Structure formats: structure tokens, C-alpha cells
């Protein structure tokens, strides 16, 4: 496992900024517990109106 102490200050800042952006974006749009992830990835599966 790579150790965080091996990371430079610049790398730590980049990681922090990347995670903040990802987490900020994800948390801005809630998902219902029942909403199914696109785990079987076929884009055409979504090409149908949900009832």
C-alpha cells in the first residue's frame, strides 16, 4: 500500500481538491435508496420510458 507520507504537499492538495469536487457534486443530487445503479452497463437499456 502506498503511504500518504510519501505524497508531496502538492499531491495532497490535489487529492483533497479532487475529492471535494466529487463529493460536492454527488451530494448535490440525492438518489433514492431504491434507485438502481447502472451496474449492468448497456446504454440502450435506458432507452425505454419508465412507468
Amino acid at each position, binding site marked *: 500500500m502506498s503511504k500518504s507520507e510519501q505524497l508531496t504537499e502538492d499531491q495532497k492538495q490535489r487529492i483533497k481538491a*479532487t475529492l471535494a469536487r466529487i463529493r460536492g457534486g454527488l451530494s*448535490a443530487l440525492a438518489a433514492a435508496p431504491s434507485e438502481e445503479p447502472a451496474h449492468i452497463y448497456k446504454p440502450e437499456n435506458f432507452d425505454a420510458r419508465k412507468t
Partner: protein
Amino acid sequence: MREKLETLSEQVRALENGTCTAIDLAKRALEKAEAHKALNAFAALDADTVMKEAIASDKRRCKGELLGPIDGVPIAVKDNYLTRDYPTTACSNAKPTVREGVDATVVANLRAAGVVIFGKTNMHEWAFGATNSTSSIGATRNPHNPDHITGGSSGGSAAAVAAGIVGAALGSDTGGSVRIPSSACGVYGFKPTYGRASRHGVLPLSWSLDAPGPIAASLEDIALLLPYFLGADAKDSSTASATRFVPEVGPDKPRVLHLTGAGLERADVVDEAVRNALAGSAADVDDSELPNMRSYFAAWEAILHVEASSYHDTLLSSAGNAFTSVTRAHLEAGKQITAQEALHAQKLRGRFIDHLLNNLSDWDVLALPTLPVPAPRHGVDRQSFGGRDVTTQDSMTWFCWPGNLAGLPCISLPVGASTNGLPIGMMLMGKPGKDEILLDIARRFDKRQ
């Protein structure tokens, strides 16, 4: 004034009518590669290997034993495709562990059709970036102005085509890596529907976002090459139900949704070029906005980082410092995204696809610029456009990531130039599996024809 590029299709016709040989094409390409060495487009190129394949092609032609219509044309290959006759480095000092002597499926398909594999092209390290400024062999330079970047991650492939070294080259696309450099260099790039083109033998960046695709000098070239990309491959389970390329004609008057609004800003010169291209066509064009762009972008970014860090976990542990500092930081960030967050991203992905396909008004293609700005200068870290100030990296993927998050077929085609002669590209996105329709509709907007 730059010379008009010789297309792959023109080379095929020249071989057919006997005005040149495969040896002529190979020699000319090698001379041009040497003349354009300063572009740094190639990671590996062996003249003897190229000439050997060209000689073999000419012998087949003499005997009437051609392997296919593209037998004898030189095509360059991005350095993340496995090739049996060249090493594959992903332009990183963190070397991939790969089987030597193996071809990626797309390379094998082209080789079986008699193509002359014309070396390996420079790329952004491990495809984890879209500027092509980060590479173990140095940045690529834009043939339109070497002070500007090519974009990436398939920057060497686009530069080789735009410089007229080859008529076509192979790229891969996870967030625009075929389309971005195609736009920045003024050539054509096609990303197939996810699951229609085999990824086997293309070093992964993100399994569920990656797609191999061609970069070429014309739309006709793209059509010539897609049969070697599309179709089922037992070595890539995502292609299990993939159909082969069968040309199709789209509607007479396609319905085009031009996407605009928050998160889709662009420089005025780019907006003007795209609107002019759309206005000059026989299409119904409407503007439409996409909501929640910040969250959907985060979903793409989360999936990208998680999958990339998973793929590189072993290498990151054993040789983390062999990656460049920025790439290592990306991979380390991916390790800190939780399973809950990754699943949330996949939920948003499903919702994004559903919104594009079902909640927007009816459309045949979605239109956007490929890039919000013409190719930036080397060494400039930020770009300002439309009230936004973002990193150059973010500006490159600005419009392209939705095509990967939704798995849609996408094409970038040149539609104009900035006042200082840098190309401007337009991107069209089609419905999943409708790659042939997308290609046909793109023809209506093509200024080259």
C-alpha cells in the same frame, strides 16, 4: 496555408488504380514523420518493420491476393493498444505488465485486412488526462501551431493525421480522448457506442467508460474504418450483443438538440462556428439545457477515478513514484472514494442516461462544440470562457464526458477556425447503437465534402 490532407480513402483509391504502391505510401509516411519529428507524435516507429509490411502488401496485390480494401495503407496506433511488433508503454514510466507479442483486437482486425501498422503514437500518460502535456516522452505539438497543445489523450494520433503523416490513426476515449485532439488538430474522431467496439488489448483507464475509436482525415475514412472496430468479440464481454457495421441512412431532416446552459459555456468564437455549422444544414435545430451538470460530472469523475485506481492498485503500491506526480495524485484520490459514493455515482449515471434518452424532447443527434476554446498554448494552466475560469484539463473534457457517462456514439468534425487559424470542432452525439445513423447525419454538416 496548410496543404489539403491526403485522406485514407484517397490512398485506397490510389492503390486500386495503380497510381501508387504500398511501398510508396510507406516511404512517403516515413519521410513525413521525419520532417515532422518536432511534433513528437510518435512513441515508437520502426522503418524496417513498416517497409516489410508494405512490401508484403504489394506482393499480395501483384498476386491478386488482397486481404481487404484497406490492404497496404499505413495506420498509426496509440501507445495503449497492444501490438505484437512494438512495445506498449502508455507513455508512462510506470510500465504496464502486458503480454508481449499480442495484438489488441482492433489492431488484429486491421492487420488481418492488410493494414501497415505505422508505429505507436504519443499519448497522455495512461490516458489519465486530456492535454497530452504529460507523457514519458514529452508533450505533443499541434501541427497547426506548435506553440499550442494537441489535446489528448490520443494527441499523437491526431497530430500524425493532421500533419499528413498518415490518413488515420487509432485512439481511445474515456472522457473525450479521441474527440478532443481531433478537434484541436482539425481532423475527424469517432467514439463508438459503449459495447460495440472491443476494448480487448487496449490498456484500460476506466472499464465502463473506455471506447476505442478511429481518428482520420475525412468522414469517408471513418466509415472505411468502423467495420474493423464494431462487432462482437469473445475477448470483451461488453461486446456480447454488438452488431457489425452496416451503413444506414438517417432521416432527411434530422432533429438536432443543441445543448447549452450552465456547465456548457463556450468562447464566443467557438459558439459562432458551431451555430453557423448547424444553421447551414438541412436539420431542425433547437436549443436545450441539461440540468444538474455539476452532479453528473462528479458521477463521471468518481467512476473514472475509482476504476482507474482499482486497475492500477498493484502498480501504485509497488512503484507509485514511477507515475508522474499528477497521475499518482489522481490514482490516490480514487482509492479514497467509498463504495457508497461509487454506487451513488452509478445511480446518477443511470438517471443521466434516462434523462438524455427520455426526458429531453425527441432528437436524432445532440450537438455541442467539442471544446469550449481553440487549442490552448503550452504551459497555460487555466482557460477563461463564457464567464468560467477553469483548468486547461477541465476545459478539454468540458463537453465530452457526457458521451462516455451515457455510452453514446459521438463524432467530432472540424467546422471552423479561430482568427489565428486554430481549428474548431463540433461534436454530435447519437442514440446508443445508432453509430451508422450518427455517421450519416454528420455528413450533412461536413464542410470537407
